[in-house]
C-alpha cells in the first residue's frame, strides 16, 4: 500500500508553458529523436568516399 502511495506521489515532472504541457520524459525523448535525426543527416556514412559513380542499378 505504501508503495502505491509513493507511486502516486511521483507522478512525473511536467514542462508547463501556456497551452503546452508535456512530461519531462517525453520532452527528452523528442529532443533525443531530433538529435538522432540531425546526426543521421550530418554524420558521414561509412565507405561513402570510396565509392565512385552512382551505381544506380537498384
Amino acid at each position, binding site marked *: 500500500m505504501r508503495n502505491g502511495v509513493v507511486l502516486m506521489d511521483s507522478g512525473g515532472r511536467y514542462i508547463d508553458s501556456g497551452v503546452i504541457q508535456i512530461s519531462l520524459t517525453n520532452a527528452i525523448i523528442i529532443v533525443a529523436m531530433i538529435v538522432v535525426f540531425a546526426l543521421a*543527416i550530418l554524420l558521414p556514412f561509412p565507405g561513402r568516399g570510396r565509392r565512385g559513380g552512382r551505381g544506380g542499378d537498384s
Partner: protein
Amino acid sequence: MTAASAGGEPTPAGSWTVRTRDRITRIVPPGQALPDRQPAYMSSWIYVFGILTVAALLVVVATGVLLAVGGVAWWHVSRTGHFVNSLHLWSVELFFAFMVIHLWGKFWMAAWRGNRALTWMTGVVAFLGSIGTAFTGYLSQSNFDSQWISTQAKDGLNAVGVGAYFNVLNPGQMLMWHITLLPLVLGAIVGLHLVLVRRHGIVPPIDAEGPDDVDLQEAGAL
C-alpha cells in the same frame, strides 16, 4: 504461348501459376526485390531508418509471440516473462522512434515524388495502424495501468462516435485485436509498403533530379 515446366512439358499460358509468376515479375522485376547495389545518394544514415523500423517490428512480433505462449501470469510473475515483456515494450519504443525519424526524413525529401504517392500513403496508414496496435497493447497489459487507460480512452472514443463498434473496456476483445487482427492488417500494409518501395526504388534527393534521373530510370532504379 507456353512456358516449359521442370519436366520439359509445356505449361499453358493460362495456368494460374504462370499468371501469378508473370504478375509478380511485373510488380517487382527480377533484381529489384533484393538489390545488391544502390544509388550513391543512398550513402547516408537517414536511409537506414526504414529498415531499422522493419527490424524493430520483427523483434516486436517475435517477443509478442513469446508473450502469447507464456500468457498473462507468466509476463507478470516470472523473471523471464518480465524480461520478454520489457523487450516487447522497448522494441515498440524503438519501432516508433525509428518510424518517426524515417517519416521526418521522407517528408523533408518529399518522398512522394516520382509516382510514389501510394508508397507514401501506405506509410501513413502503417503509421496510424501502428498507433492503434500499440494502444490495444496498453489495454492488454492486464494491470491497473491498462484499466486506467481504457477508462480514459472510452470517453474520448465515445465522444467521437466510434464506441458503438468496439469497446476498449472489453479486455478480451482488445487482446484479440492486439495479437491477431491488427498485426495481420499492419503486416499486410507494411508488406505492401515494402513491395512499393522495391517497385519504385528509393526517391532521389530533390537536387539530384534532372538529366541524371533519366539514367536511374533506365537502370531500373526508379
